[in-house]
């Protein structure tokens, strides 16, 4: 049986395999295969080096910092972290920041969900203009709104409260949330809505029971972005507060005193502002890339 089938002689096969292997070797020589990894490593080094330096400094005593350059803390100390966790101005700074960020996330997602649904499912008078107007708020430089915000919140008696900062950050966070959510919602087929309505679901019931679970990853990513932009913005936050709801950023400016800058504490406070971000990014790591493209890839 086997003799009647046409087959390639073993020698030919071996020669072909050898030629193939040599071609593969030529096209991808060892340094070429390692190059992407090396470049990636270099870039990560560039990203991490300044952060390492901050970390390094936060564990050094001030005398060691000013005494000379050391590549790692020789005189390892928690003194700066201790100071932050025991001084009320310092830890209240963190709590204040977290308070207004959480408030802002809650308000923004609550009003952005129905609005994004409307933009992704319906046409209505002025929809395109409205959407562009929303984006203009994303583009507004905070510096432009500094003075009017100060006066507005002062007049309505909200100055120096957490809610004032939370509301002010809505200016750019609500448009951002709508933009991202709209992208994710447009990825859900419309037939799902229609089927649910035929099955007798009312709109609120459909929205909460069916639609929201379907875009839960989108909501997670949106919350991450709301957190991020509210957490990193400081110009408005520090202008709208004085002592009662002072964000960590304004507390950090108090490290420079007449006797010079308290580098160690400044570094430790900086390290502590990075931690919440790492914590949050860990939860959305699988969806974050899609979120950065505003749900549109």
């Amino acid at each position: 049986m086997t003799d009647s089938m046409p087959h390639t002689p073993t020698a030919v096969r071996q020669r072909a395999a050898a030629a193939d292997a040599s071609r593969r070797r030529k096209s991808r020589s060892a340094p070429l295969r390692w190059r992407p990894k090396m470049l990636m490593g270099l870039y990560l080094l560039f990203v991490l080096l300044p952060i390492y330096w901050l970390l390094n400094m936060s564990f050094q005593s001030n005398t060691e910092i000013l005494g000379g350059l050391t590549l790692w803390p020789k005189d390892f100390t928690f003194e700066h972290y201790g100071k932050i966790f025991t001084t009320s101005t310092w830890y209240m700074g963190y709590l204040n920041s977290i308070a207004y960020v959480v408030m802002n996330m809650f308000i923004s997602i609550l009003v952005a969900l129905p609005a994004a649904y409307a933009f992704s499912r319906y046409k209505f008078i002025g929809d395109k203009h409205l959407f562009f107007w929303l984006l203009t708020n994303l583009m507004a430089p905070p510096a432009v709104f500094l003075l009017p915000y100060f006066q507005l919140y002062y007049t309505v008696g909200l100055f120096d409260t957490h809610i004032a900062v939370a509301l002010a950050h809505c200016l750019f966070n609500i448009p951002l949330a709508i933009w991202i959510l709209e992208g994710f919602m447009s990825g859900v087929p419309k037939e799902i809505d229609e089927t649910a309505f035929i099955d007798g679901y009312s709109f609120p019931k459909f929205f909460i029971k069916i639609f929201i679970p379907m875009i839960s990853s989108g909501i997670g990513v949106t919350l991450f972005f709301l957190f991020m932009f509210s957490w990193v913005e400081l110009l408005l936050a520090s202008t709208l507060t004085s002592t009662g709801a002072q964000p960590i950023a304004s507390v950090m400016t108090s490290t420079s005193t007449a006797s010079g800058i308290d580098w160690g504490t400044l570094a430790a406070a900086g390290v502590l502002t990075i931690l919440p971000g790492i914590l949050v990014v860990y939860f959305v790591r699988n969806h974050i890339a899609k979120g950065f493209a505003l749900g549109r890839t």
Partner: protein
Amino acid sequence: MNKVYDNKAWWLILPMLVLVAFSAIIPLMTVVNYSVQDVFDANTRFFTGTEWFAQMLNDPTLQAALLRQFAFSMTVLAIEVPLGIGIALIMPKKGWQASVVLILVTLPLLIPWNVVGSIWQIFTRGDIGLMGWGLRELGYGYNITRSTVDAWGTIILMDVWHWTPLIALLCYSGLRSIPEAYYQAARIDRASKWSVFRYIQLPKLTNVLVIGVLLRFMHSFMIYAEPFVLTGGGPGSSTTFLSQSLTTMAIGQQDLGPSAAFSLIYFLIILLVSWVFYTAIMNMQKEKQEEGI
């Protein structure tokens, strides 16, 4: 997607509209109000019309700040966009390395902006900073408080460090949406790496790149905290960008009229450029729908 025409959708928009109007329209109207008046105190004010606008447009310090701002925005875009694409191409696609690299690359984006300034301030100081010290040891008289070139270089490096991840992540997500079959077809055709990039990857990236460039332009045009902490706008006023000039004028000198006029001019410039980008994005999406993809 076929959208239904229904004006009842306005009810879904309404809560958002009230909230955004409160934080956008009222303050903006206040700015407009100030920009056309000369305010002495609560009761004495004069209508000045376009006088402040004319004064601001002819102010040499602001013209200089505007030019610097454009130079800065264009420079960082020119560096960050190609670099971001390059990084997206070499980021690992799967396995635990992918997650780790993703989180590490995202890291700079999650740091409060004034802390970014502090990090680089500490990093570049000649006495206690690794980079400042290192450059001096190598024999370069690095000093950001004296030399304009050093200050500019450091601010651009800082911005590249801070924002390249945004472009990289956008492109990474664009690349992940390319089906494996495209690459297989390219392998069968023995396509070179360059043609894979040029004809498969780049077309898929245009969409996310436009968003990326738009966001980067907007943010770089509003930059405030980072250079403020790092150089304080100096040496001289060589790194004073628009936001900082504006804040100095509005808060520091309390010149309500001129700073309001300046705010509006500033806002309009951003609006104009962003509108061009926005129209481009929308047209692209329309074309895509018409192609039926």
